[in-house]
């Protein structure tokens, strides 16, 4: 990644200086360079192609609803052909933020345990388990959410939350209504389980970037494990951890099947977390196959375009932080 980052800043010069001498030496080298370059540029072409198709397919909806109007319209009414992204955007943001709130502490805890606290014979098994969690297909999370988690949420957890937090003045708004298990909260819990592995493994790698010498000096000064983690490891790697957090955020924004079953796909904006809602991806998964009018289909493509831009911005921010972190600390 560092090579890539470095290369991207000065790539025309890099390619000229690196490629020019080698081409003279060996035709195989030239072929190799061309093949790798073609592979890389094909990705850029692919992304550009996807963007062009999304814009082209959604042009009807862009023309009819405009950008600002589309993003701030709550209504999503296929019968009257009025479409707005606000409710889906709201659902996407609420589930993403909530799941991050639940996942980050756990993930950072896991990373601290693996890098600093666990005896070495435990590091391997825990690391592998976390990676296995990331390998479970999201549809399995979805089915598990529908048949197992949703009943637990509606029968136990959500009534308990209503009886405790729901009694407090501000929180009561968040926990109003009949707990059904098909709501923003359940979806966020599933999402948080899905993104823990990403945040945990990137945080672990970031923590590992902390130079041993610095840590050892802190221990030599009499610092406890907690103080070393708090004052040395986390400050050293906070940008890397942040990058990992934003990367998992990208994952949470784009996750589809895990939440498609437990969110209800209701295009509404209500304050309670115990209400059904819709996210962009859930709307796409639920409605794409049966979208019967041109403007309906075009609006779904428009939603996808909004998601594309949103994910792009998120990942761009993440990359920025990761590059800065590595430049700052890995020397």
């Amino acid at each position, binding site marked *: 990644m560092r090579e890539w980052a470095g290369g991207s800043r000065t790539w025309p010069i890099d390619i000229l200086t690196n490629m020019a001498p080698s081409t003279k030496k060996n035709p195989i080298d030239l072929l190799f360079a061309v093949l790798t370059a073609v592979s890389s540029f094909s990705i850029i072409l692919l992304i550009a192609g996807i963007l062009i198709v999304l814009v082209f397919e959604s042009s009807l909806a862009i023309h009819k609803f405009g950008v600002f109007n589309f993003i701030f319209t709550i209504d999503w009414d296929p019968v009257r052909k009025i479409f707005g992204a606000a409710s889906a955007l709201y659902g996407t943001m609420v589930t993403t933020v909530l799941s991050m709130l639940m996942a980050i502490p756990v993930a950072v805890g896991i990373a601290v345990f693996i890098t600093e606290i666990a005896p070495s014979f435990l590091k391997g098994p825990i690391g592998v388990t976390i990676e296995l969690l990331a390998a479970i297909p999201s549809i399995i999370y979805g089915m598990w959410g529908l048949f197992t988690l949703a009943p637990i949420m509606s029968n136990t957890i959500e009534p308990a939350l209503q009886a405790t937090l729901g009694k407090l003045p501000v929180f009561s708004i968040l926990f109003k209504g009949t707990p059904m298990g098909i709501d923003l909260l359940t979806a966020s819990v599933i999402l948080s389980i899905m993104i823990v592995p990403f945040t945990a493994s990137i945080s672990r790698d970031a923590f590992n970037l902390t130079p041993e010498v610095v840590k050892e000096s802190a221990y030599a000064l009499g610092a406890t494990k907690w103080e070393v983690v708090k004052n040395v490891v986390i400050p050293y790697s906070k940008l890397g951890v942040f990058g990992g957090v934003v990367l998992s955020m990208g994952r949470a924004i784009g996750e589809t099947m895990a939440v498609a079953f437990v969110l209800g*796909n209701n295009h509404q904006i209500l304050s309670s977390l115990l209400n059904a809602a819709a996210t962009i991806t859930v709307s796409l998964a639920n409605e794409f196959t049966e979208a019967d009018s041109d403007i309906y289909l075009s609006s779904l493509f428009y939603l996808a375009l909004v998601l594309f831009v949103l994910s792009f911005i998120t990942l761009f921010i993440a990359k920025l932080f990761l590059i800065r972190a590595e430049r700052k600390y890995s020397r």
Partner: protein
Amino acid sequence: MKTVFKIGLVLAFVLAGVSAQAAETINGAGASFPYPVYSAWAYNYHKATGIQLNYQSIGSGGGIRQITNRTVEFGASDAPQTPEFLKKNNLLQFPAVMGGVVLVVNIKGVKAGQMHLDADAVCKIYLGEITYWDDAKIKSMNPKLTLPHKMITVVHRSDGSGTTAIFTTYLSQACSAWNDKVGHGTSVKWPLGIGGKGNEGVANYVRRSGNSIGYVEFAYAKQNKLAYTLLKNPAGRFVAPNFKTFEDAAATGDFEPGKDFYLWLVNAKGENAWPIAGATFILLAKEKKEADMKTVKFYDWAFKHGDKKAKELVYIPLPESLKNKIRAYWKAHGIY
């Protein structure tokens, strides 16, 4: 040299096989609702004639788009397309098989076939105007049942589907308030309720929440023994959803070849007709006569030999009179 020859021979056979298969395959795509019966028919048709039917259940919307773009030989849609749409895209349309939608409830002590409802009550429940099960209107239709003073949990589909299209068309026709406020389509803006994905999603939430009502395909309710309700039909009788009441609906439905069989089979006039039924349709490209003839041959075969299989899978075969109307329609367009 010998191995090269062998490889060449194998390749030649494979290619020959592929091209032979290509000539004997019918490609179709569309509605997911009739997928089980189409593939069962296709299996038997292949055994009987050696011709393969490759049907991809990508959803009605996709089926309509694919046949409009002429990428498949036939498209399938749960919703009938209007004659104007068909004319604009140079398409033909005919019904292939029927299904229906039933309402299921989960109330303690209420068994399948005990709850009586009429269109107005269903409409008011789904509009949120009737909110308790012991509402006077429901009580008056169910004097024998003891209904709890509990909020009604309304369940609907979260995904776009032909089932929703049929159900909302039924409500729109039977109840003007619904037509004004919500309308009909594969997905609509529900005034209230929770959304389940697919029949299994709706059934799951109805089963779990209690004091709930939802709508599912007839086949799904029957196979899973859900507590269906009786409905009052336009003839004024309370009917149960079964093959007889569906066949009665089909027999009294006005499928007109002149209108390309465009018909929502809801609120049918028959004495014993179940009010929420619907046919699923096949779309053909008008100008591709040769491909159409292959498709038509398949459905003609299915009309002759497929009724038993359809019933096994809980679909309602078309009545004989309608099949003959369809054959005449094919003949009129020179594809039979």
